[in-house]
């Protein structure tokens, strides 16, 4: 691992020197920030808190054209648009970066998804350490931390007047090479300060739970009325899945505009009744209770059994943004204490 110091007022300059990459970073959109392609680094608005959508959408766009059909009805070979130039994604939460690792275990293995893999291999993920975690953060209960480097190519630590940058991968090293003139070796003070922000950030996490008890009870609670109780508040809006950095489900639909047909994939949500609705009218998960149960089992049992890791990074978005006040941590705690 290499590390560097960067003066805070040189940050925009640093981003401008990155010539061979497309820069993606949070920009302000009303009360929130959103990851977008940024042509002028002056517009970058670093903000980890008011960021309803994780950077996931850059690799799994909400709507993505898989391919178009020609006049004969033959699919035209797609060009995986926007993936030719390397993408530098700056200001990613460490928890969101861990989320990509969870998606990788489905999308990069066992019949890889070429659309995702092309973007993933072409993306450099630069994280920003989460110095002041938010009220619903619980990454430390899921094996992460506000300073986790997992899934990141480089990570920026806010050391007051400067950043300390840790570079973990060859891909990350190639990018910072271009801005070498703005970087220095980190000073002893920066290193001490970094250790302090790492320690303090972990201490600021307010919520936690024990996954062991959840897993144990998942074995016996499938037919329990607990799921109906839990789903009583749910309105099946799907916001928990859309804002989740590890949810990856999609729908495929055909679009026909002025006689030209395209096959498109769109984010989908296991909270929607239509998600599993058969053409016959039969629905294996007809009510919110079955759908919520399936989501909990997928994330906190099946994903662990299949891929060795829970399908959750503890980012807390589904709690903060739920319009019906569903609280994932409380739900997990009620599973833990059910028996």
């Amino acid at each position, binding site marked *: 691992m290499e590390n560097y110091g960067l003066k805070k007022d040189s940050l925009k300059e640093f981003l401008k020197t990155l010539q061979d990459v497309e820069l993606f970073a949070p920009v302000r959109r009303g009360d929130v920030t959103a990851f977008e392609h940024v042509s002028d680094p002056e517009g970058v608005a670093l903000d980890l808190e008011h960021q309803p959508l994780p950077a996931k959408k850059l690799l799994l766009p909400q709507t993505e054209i898989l391919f178009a059909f020609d006049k004969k009805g033959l699919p035209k070979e797609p060009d995986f648009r926007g993936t030719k130039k390397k993408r530098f994604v700056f200001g990613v939460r460490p928890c969101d970066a861990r989320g990509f690792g969870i998606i990788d275990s489905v999308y990069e293995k066992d019949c890889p998804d070429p659309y995702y893999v092309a973007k993933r291999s072409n993306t450099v993920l630069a994280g920003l350490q989460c110095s002041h975690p938010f009220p619903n953060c619980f990454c430390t209960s899921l094996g992460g931390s506000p300073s986790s480097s997992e899934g990141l190519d480089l990570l920026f630590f806010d050391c007051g007047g400067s950043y300390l940058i840790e570079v973990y991968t060859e891909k990350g090293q190639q990018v910072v090479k271009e801005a070498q003139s703005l970087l220095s070796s980190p000073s002893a003070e920066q290193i001490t300060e970094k250790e302090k922000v790492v320690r303090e950030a972990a201490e600021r996490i307010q919520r936690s739970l024990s996954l062991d008890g959840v897993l144990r009870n998942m074995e016996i609670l*499938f037919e329990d009325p607990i799921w109906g109780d839990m789903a009583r508040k749910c309105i099946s809006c799907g916001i928990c899945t859309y804002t989740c950095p590890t949810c*990856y489900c999609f729908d495929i639909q055909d679009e026909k505009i002025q006689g030209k047909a395209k096959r498109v994939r769109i984010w989908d949500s*296991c909270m929607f009744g239509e*998600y599993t609705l058969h053409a016959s009218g039969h629905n294996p998960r007809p009510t919110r209770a079955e759908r919520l149960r399936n989501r909990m089992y997928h994330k906190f049992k099946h994903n662990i059994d299949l891929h060795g890791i829970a399908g959750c990074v503890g980012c807390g978005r589904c709690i903060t943004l739920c319009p019906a006040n569903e609280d994932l941590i409380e739900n997990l705690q009620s599973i833990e204490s059910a028996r």
Partner: protein
Amino acid sequence: MINPYLPHQAKIQSVKQETTGDRVIKTFKLVLEDNSCRESFLYKPGQCAMLGVPGVGESMISITSSPTQKESIAFSIMRMGKVTSAIHEKEAGDPLTLRGPYGNHFPLDEWKGKNILTVGGGIGQAPLSSIIHYVLDNRTDYGAIDIIYGARTTADLCYKEELFEMERREDIRVHLSIDVREEGWDRYVGFVPSNLLRIKPSPENAVAITCGPPVMIKFVLKNLLQLGFAESQIYTTLENRMKCGIGKCGRCNVGPVYVCKDGPVFSYVQLKSLPEAHIS
């Protein structure tokens, strides 16, 4: 890298209307246009494929032909939703898109030397038909073959002519039924699970494969156990809504398994370990 979402073009060789009434089933025989695609499309009984109409969408359909039938790949499709309705409008010579095959398959190699019993209802006969043709085309590899198949009425029976012809063969026993009495029907009248109990096939050195509506499967499983079949001798298939076919889009899971890639074929033993399958 292979793009698993890109379908191939296939031409409809023939269309045969199997049933009449409000649930029309047609069997479409397809031939892949491209020679290399045709050679690389290797499937086994039980597998499915994604059929599509450009601009309308795709549906996962089980393959009803056997890989021993080299001239085409057949799909029996009930007119149900948007895509199957669009497919039903198609005629011989029209193109469709095809990708796959997907999923696991019936363990026909393991079944060599065994007696084969299929118990089907309605459109559920589609994947069973693939097994039947496969074992008939490899007749000496298998023991006795019993086909139990029924539908609501004669108008709802698939593969009628073919099954009536098989009734006359010496090397296979066919037991057809309809739910309600009809003029001219001299075979069994009653539900498929009852016909199964009446025929009493021996579990000795046998495997039983059942496909059909969930309520039929439920009672067929019960009756097979009553006849002495062990759970490990019983197989069925599951179906769920699917979009990708490769375990990515999420929706076809039954607990931890994805019907598109881990199924559609499951033994009764496997199903019992899946509470969401609601089989026991």
